Structures are given as structure tokens and as C-alpha cells.
């Protein structure tokens, strides 16, 4: 049985459907998502996961209605302020991936910067929030950075390339969990998920809880041992 995944990443999908099922506006789904986020952070922290990444907002999400984007921004701010101290006291280092669009309101950029400053020396677990993130953009930026540094073509290797990505100290992702049963990558940390295991539990993100997470971790640990095509538990999708 293999050990705990070092780096777990989440595509938090299904907020909109969760709200639609209850005849609520989409924004209600985002509000309900906060509890799941906190539950997952707690569970990862308890389980000893060292790196946890959450896909909160993609570069494509800017196309959503302005009102929804605005509510999302406010929710993120509220969540940061509500949980900053708790995260810090648990020894969690918080980082953000992306966060380059000028449409991010200055007050949110400020809170994000503050949260990163506050928790930057924590080492128990690193929480990376992909916010205004696009995997391809990161790769393009890394390429630009290489070219600017004048690295000769023969010296460009996977390792040297990776050093030009944002947060180069971040290890590769071992396990990606995408909720709501959708099975797409959606431009998420493309470089880092190259060798990751994927799981697609059908539960919608606002309903996702620590128990679901533990189930995923359990499956991950057993998958390797039963390598050779054993049926995966119901909570996961078809896997590979």
C-alpha cells in the first residue's frame, strides 16, 4: 500500500448545479462551497497531506455574468478574512496561483497579499489557491521567461523549464479530485498534473465533505497496490 499523496489538487465543480437543483441563484452555490473548502482543508491537514491546491477561479471564469463574478470576489474576501487566523495557527502556508488580472479589485488583491505575507513562513501544509489561473498561460509565461533569460535551446529540459513556472518549489500533483462527475482538465495546472491520478466523485462540490475526501485518499492508496485493473470504488468515476 502506498503512502499518502504528497500533493492533492481539487477542481471544485458543481456549485451552479447544486444551486439549480434547489431553485437557487448560482451565487448561492458559491456561498455553500465555503463549508466544503474548509472541510477539505481540515481533512488534508489532519491526514498529513503536505500540498493542497484548489481551483477556485479560472481565466475563463471572467466570462461569467458580472454580478456572479462580483459576488465571487466578495465571497473570497469574506472567506480569507474569516479563516486567515485559523489557517495561520494551523501552520498552513497560503499561496495563490494566477491573480494577475487587473479586474481583481484592489481590496481583494490586498487581502490576498496580506494572507500570503501572514502565512509565508508556515510549513506544515501549503495551500495553493488557483485564482484567475490558466495552465496554458503559466506554460506560455514560463517559455517567455526562458527566452528572456536567453537560455540556449539545448539547455531547455523538463527540469529547467519547470523552474520558470510560478511557484517552482511546488511538487508535481499526485492526485486530482474533480467533483460533480465532470471529467475534464479545464486548463488546470497542466504542467503539474502530468502524472497525477484522477478521481471524479459524482458528488457536487458544496456537498463534498471530509468523508468523501478520506474515501478518495483511501482509493488512491489502494490503487497502486492493486495495480493491474481492479474495479475502483463507487465514489470515483472511471478513473483513467
Amino acid at each position, binding site marked *: 500500500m502506498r503512502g499518502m499523496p504528497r500533493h492533492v489538487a481539487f477542481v471544485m465543480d458543481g456549485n451552479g448545479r447544486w444551486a439549480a437543483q434547489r431553485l437557487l441563484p448560482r451565487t448561492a452555490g458559491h456561498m455553500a462551497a465555503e463549508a466544503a473548502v474548509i472541510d477539505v482543508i481540515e481533512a488534508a491537514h489532519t491526514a498529513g497531506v503536505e500540498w493542497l491546491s484548489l481551483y477556485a477561479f479560472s481565466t475563463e471564469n471572467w466570462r461569467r455574468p458580472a454580478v456572479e463574478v462580483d459576488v465571487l470576489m466578495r465571497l473570497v*474576501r469574506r472567506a*480569507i*478574512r474569516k479563516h*486567515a*487566523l485559523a489557517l*495561520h495557527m494551523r501552520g498552513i502556508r497560503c*499561496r*495563490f*496561483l*494566477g*491573480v*494577475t*488580472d*487587473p*479586474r481583481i*479589485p*484592489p*481590496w481583494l*488583491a*490586498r*487581502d*490576498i*497579499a*496580506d*494572507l*500570503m*505575507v*501572514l502565512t*509565508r*513562513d508556515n510549513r506544515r501544509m501549503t495551500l495553493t489557491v488557483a485564482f484567475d489561473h490558466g495552465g496554458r498561460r503559466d506554460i506560455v*509565461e514560463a517559455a*517567455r*521567461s526562458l527566452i*528572456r*533569460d536567453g537560455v540556449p535551446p539545448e539547455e531547455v529540459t523538463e527540469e529547467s523549464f519547470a523552474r*520558470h513556472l*510560478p*511557484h*517552482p518549489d511546488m511538487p508535481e500533483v499526485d492526485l486530482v479530485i474533480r467533483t460533480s462527475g465532470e471529467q475534464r482538465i479545464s486548463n488546470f495546472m497542466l504542467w503539474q498534473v502530468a502524472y497525477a491520478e484522477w478521481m471524479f466523485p459524482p458528488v457536487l462540490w458544496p456537498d463534498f465533505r471530509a468523508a468523501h475526501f478520506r474515501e478518495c485518499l483511501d482509493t488512491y492508496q489502494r490503487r497502486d497496490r492493486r495495480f493491474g485493473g481492479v474495479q475502483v470504488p463507487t465514489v470515483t468515476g472511471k478513473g483513467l
Partner: protein
Amino acid sequence: MSDAASAETDDGTTPTGPADPLGPGSMLYELSHQARWGLVATRAIVLEAAHPQIGAALITNSTFVAHPWRRLHNTVISTQRMVDPDEQVRHREAARLNRLHARITGVDAEGRPFNAADPEARTWVVATLFESTVMMRRLSGQSLDGPALDRLYAEFRAFLALMEPDGGKLPPTLREFWHYYDFMVNERLENTEAVHVILDRLFTQVPAPPLLRDRPAVWAAGRALVSPVATAITVASLPETLRIRLGLSELPGTHTLMHTAYVSTRLATQLLPEAWTRLDTVMAMLDPAYAPQTGGDALSGLRSGAAKAGALLRLLTPVPGTAAVGDSTVRSAARFFSEVLDQTGNGYLDWPDVAAMAREIATRLDLDAAEEDRLFTAFADWWKDLQRELDSDSDGRITGHEYAAAAAAMTSPALIKVAEVLFDVTDTDNDETIDTQEYRDLFRTAFNHNPGNGGDADNSDEQLKRSEFVRRFLNFMTGRQHSGAYDRLFAQS
């Protein structure tokens, strides 16, 4: 001279005073790096404001009421440059101050001309700093003895001589200085408007430092407690004749209060870990973007702690319930007028406001004379355009109302010229791009579209091309688009 100075630096202070009267090892160097220098500077500025010429210059040109923290930041850095170990740095700063002062001229309310570069006025500024230092030592129970006083006086004279080609007008001996000081207090100082602006407006309405600028309520509560005390202490420490002339009565108990305050700062300076009472530390605490001139790695841990404490404080302070200030990405013309354009905070847009913007940029970028001229000329041309377009009643200044009525006229070729000159002077290596360091020099912050990385990774790959730079500047100045970077430069207190 430089040999003597470097020899001095190695073995620290000597009782007779170092060969280099400024720089490390001098009393002035030590004092100007301590947080209690703030007490000296605060008292000195009241004495300066009572000087009719300086008072007029302060009232008409200074941004210290509207942007006191930015002004403090500039003053701290300037003072530290003037006592820098490298003599070249000192001379460069002195020349810069001379140019800056020479641009501040005008006529006061009674028609008397003033000029910030006037030798007599500048002598008084240095005199008030010296006397306030002596006073600070005395009130905190650390009176200076004869030789130390002589040495301190010599250092202040050297300080003034850096700026004045003829050595300045401070009397040669200490005995003559006290005569001069008494004469100034008794005969020259007046009950100026500037003094009352400082005591009534600056202290009671001082805007929040960057640390707390998103939390006006917290700041207001603290200020309500501290401001009357600060005012009382400052007033109590003024010479009695001046206090009477200013019509300021001394409240009972303020002398005790004043002594307590001064002694406390002395004890703090003596007893607390040295790093805590350094001016740099306090500045870093108040303004997370403050970058001290000197490396000082020993302090980096503490500064990091201060930055974290500041971040936590901001995160834990409740956000004002309703639509918070700054929530909108586009601000009203009225807010843009008062936050950005009206630099002196007098309710009008006039040349001193525009000059203050140019001055702020020139100071930050530490421009040489030719670049500074280009920048001021560009701003002056823009100001002429503005006057022509917006000053509907031709009174030489623009009201918020006049501005709001015709704000679109702001996009003049002259403003584009300002943007281009700003680009040129920021692009110090002339490679047609603003790189990370050049951007930081201008805005004192990292590239604002990348708040990420927590300061621990290098973002050396970011650049800004001329067209994009000009576009952003125009967006900010005309579209009234919020910009973290330009807000820091022009709007922040």
C-alpha cells in the same frame, strides 16, 4: 576627507567628535535613525510654520496635510541620505533638495514673497531641528553636556553647509546661536495660519497611515485618543513667548504629560531591543511598502514580523459594512479630484498641486537636474492646458466643480507628453521597457498586477512597454480608473 571618514566609521565614535560630522558615528546619524526623531521633527515643524516665509510656503505648496505619511516617508529618506556614509550620496541629495526648494516660491496672503530656498528660512529650519533635539534630550532627562552640545551643533552646521554653498547662516558658536534663537522666537515668529493648520488639522485629522488606510474606523478611534495628547505635548514644549503669541494656553498637567512622554521614549530607546525603536522599523510597520535605504539584514527578521503583524491586523479588522471605500473600480470625478488632483488638500487644483505630483515623482526617482526639468516642464504644460480648458472663471485655479464639468478635456496632448516623460525618466537604462526594479523605484511596490509570490520568488521577467505604460497612466488620469500603483503614488496619504 573620505579617508578620515572611513577611518572613523571603523572605530565608532570618539568623545571629541569624528572628523566626519555627518555619517555613521555622528550624533545626528544615530538620532536620525531612531524613532523618537519623530518627536523632534514634529515639534520642529511647528516652530518652522511660525516663521512667516516658511509658513507661507507650507500652506501654499506643501502636501503635508493631505498626504502626511507620504511626506514623512520622503523626509525620512531624505534625512538619511543627508547623513549617508557615502559623501557623494549626501551631496547629490543636497543638490536635489536645493532644486526642489528653488521651485517653491510665491507670495503669501499679505503679499510678501517667499522662497523655500531662502538662506535665512533654511537656517531657521535647521535651527529648529537642532533646538528640538536639544529639547528632546533635556525633557527626556538626558541633557547634553558642553562638549556634546558643541559637537551636535557642529554636526547641524555641517548639515546646513551641505545645502548652502557659503556654509549657511547658522552662527559660528553655540552662545551666538542661543541669541539668534531667542531673537527669532521673540521678534520674527508670527501667529501664522500654518501653525494652526498643523495643530488643528494635521493632528486631529491626520489620515490613516498605509497600514490602516482600509480601516478608517480603527484609525479614527485611535486618533481620537492620541491626537489631543500629541497636540498638548507639542504645545507644552514650545517656548512660552511663542505659545502666548499663538494664543495657545497650556492646559494643567500637560507638563507632566510631556515629561512622561519624552522620558518614555527615552526608556523605550534604552530598554527595548534596539531594532524596535529604529525609525526604519516603525516606518516598515506603518507602511508595508517602506524600503529602508540601507541593507540592514539584521533587521529583516523583525521587519518580516512587523509585516506579518500588519497583515494580520488588516485581515482581522472588520470591513466597513456598506459599500466600502475603494470597492468600486471607477471612482467619481469628485473623489478623483480630492484624492488625486488636489495634492495640497485646499479644495482647489492649482499649480502647487501639479508641482507636488512632479515633485513626488522626482523625489522617488532621485532625478538629476536635466530630467527633473523635463518632468516639471511637461507638468507645467499640462497645467496650462488644464487652466485653459477648465478654469472657467479665470481665477488661476480649478474647483472640483469646474473639473467635474469638463473632465473629458483632461486627455490633452500635454498629458500624453507627461506620460512619455514619466516613462523616459523611469526607464533609467533606456531599454524602452520598465523592468521590475524601475517599476519599484517609481511605485515603491512590485508590479501591481502580480500580488502573488509572497515576496519570496523573483519576478524578474516582468516588463512594461512604453505604449502600455502611457496607456495605464492616461487611464488613471482621465478614465479615473483605479490603479493600485498610481493610487499609491498620488492618492495615498
